[in-house]
């Protein structure tokens, strides 16, 4: 396994996943099927999470294949496209989580939420498709339009849609410079990343320790209502984390701790699924002051808490382990 391998493994997930999610969502939209809508929202949220390692692995793959016979311009075009589609994917995932939250209390998510998911998932599918295509062009001359196979430094010809989308795509080098240009902006991002962490630990951590059996005087349903604050913290941290990575990818990509942090985040996705998509949430939500949670719920809560501390630990060790994976390719 190396970065190019990892990138190839992960990069099909957002392309296919967003199409599957959109398909289910459109059927639910026209068929007015709430269960199907929920399913499509869960897919959008899961794909938004999996898009993160797909994006991160791209820089490692770039470091591997750079050199004679590979066009820098094509790589740069792909990177710019990824830098645009990434945010639409994450925003679609966030909107889907908001919709899932709303559907807890209301029969269906609000109108604005459904419209926003429709709009952004459509744009995501188009943009992610373009990212996949421009990525394929790098090493597959046979699929490049109007190109002879084996041309090392091809002139890029864009179709009408490609040319239109390209006007919105950032230049990757300039994007990196923009993020890192001001130390005040960088400090602001890092401070926001810490405040997001504090919100997550305060809300999700409190819910976890209550389910584990501490602070039993607290009923669980009201504690659970704190969660949007934790999710807001998560949103802030995904945005600031991805921006920091895009600003100085070479600081992060070769750190074993970064990948363990991402792995812990993916496992937290599994943890959330084990909590919400089984009967655990239903059992736990009813618990009043003094009542004890079932063992399975305690196990899920304890592993969630453990994984959050793994995320923090690995985040702190990104810097000392910054070049641990250098030369393993």
């Amino acid at each position, binding site marked *: 396994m190396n970065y190019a391998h990892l990138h190839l493994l992960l990069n099909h997930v957002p392309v296919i996943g967003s199409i599957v999610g959109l398909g289910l969502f459109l059927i639910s939209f026209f068929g007015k099927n709430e269960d199907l809508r929920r399913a499509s929202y869960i897919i959008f949220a899961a794909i938004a999470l999996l898009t993160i390692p797909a994006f991160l692995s791209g820089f490692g793959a770039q*470091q591997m294949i750079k050199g004679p016979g590979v066009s820098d311009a094509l790589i740069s075009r792909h990177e710019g496209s990824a830098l645009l589609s990434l945010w639409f994917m994450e925003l679609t995932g966030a909107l889907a989580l908001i919709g899932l939250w709303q559907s807890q209390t209301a029969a269906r998510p609000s109108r604005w939420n459904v419209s926003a998911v429709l709009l952004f998932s459509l744009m995501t599918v188009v943009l992610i498709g373009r990212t996949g295509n421009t990525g394929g062009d790098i090493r597959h001359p046979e699929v490049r339009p109007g190109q002879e196979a084996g041309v090392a430094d091809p002139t890029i010809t864009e179709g009408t849609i490609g040319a239109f989308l390209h006007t919105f795509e950032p230049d990757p080098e300039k994007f990196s410079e923009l993020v890192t240009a001001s130390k005040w902006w960088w400090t602001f991002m890092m401070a926001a990343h810490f405040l997001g962490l504090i919100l997550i630990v305060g809300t999700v951590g409190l819910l976890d320790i209550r389910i584990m059996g501490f602070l039993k005087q607290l009923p669980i349903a009201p504690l659970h209502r704190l969660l949007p604050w934790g999710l807001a913290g998560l949103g802030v941290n995904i945005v600031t984390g991805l921006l920091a990575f895009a600003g100085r990818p070479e600081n992060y990509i070769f750190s074993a701790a970064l990948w363990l942090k991402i792995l812990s985040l993916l496992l937290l996705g599994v943890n959330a699924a084990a909590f919400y998509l089984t009967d655990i949430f239903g059992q736990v939500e009813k618990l009043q002051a003094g009542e004890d949670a079932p063992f399975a719920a305690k196990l899920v809560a304890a592993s969630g808490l453990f994984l959050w501390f793994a995320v923090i630990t690995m985040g702190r060790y990104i810097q000392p382990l910054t070049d641990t994976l250098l030369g393993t390719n």
Partner: protein
Amino acid sequence: MLDARVEAVIFDRFYSGLNHGVCAPGANPQMSPGLLEARDSGFNARLGAKLVVPVIFNTIEQSGISRWLRESQSLFGFYFILLFHTIGMSLVVGANAVVDLRILGVASDIPLQPLKRLFAIMWTGLGINVTTGLLLLTAYPTKALTNPDFYVKLSFIGLAVFTMYRMNVRVFGDASLSEAAMVAKGKIMAVWSLVFWIGAVGSGRLLSETARYFFYGHPAGG
């Protein structure tokens, strides 16, 4: 194949590894002695001349524990302490923020009185951070104590902890208070608590950008 950006960072790493990332981006350790001297004298002029760094900072830096904290390559050295400083922060600020938000009306069906037990978590987190903070200070006394932002951070922490103590005693210390009375008493404290903690975290993150010295006799920036 590595591109120039990566090579530059590996070089940066080599240097900043000696001072745990406090090296300003782009600082060049290979400056000629003349250039270094010119930079430092300009730097001292900007500081307003007669500011002398106390020699005791150097004494601390040369002590065995300080050198071990700074120079040990062990994963259980400097970064381990920094990790617990972060975890302590998440405990004290996370628990305090939740209590503040509840007093300000978020998830208002959470019973308020039982949240008193969260103060034990806050004091534990504070204890972790005083301990780890003193160790970090032992590792880099000159860097911390010559940085004006360090005193801003300490002031914010002092104000936040004072507010936390007052809330603990005045809002949660009187079991006879009704929820409405607790909220009425705690509202202003909750706002200030959030402001002070955000200030503490923000000025804490700013420390590495505002350092005037890396070590005794080694000015930063230039």
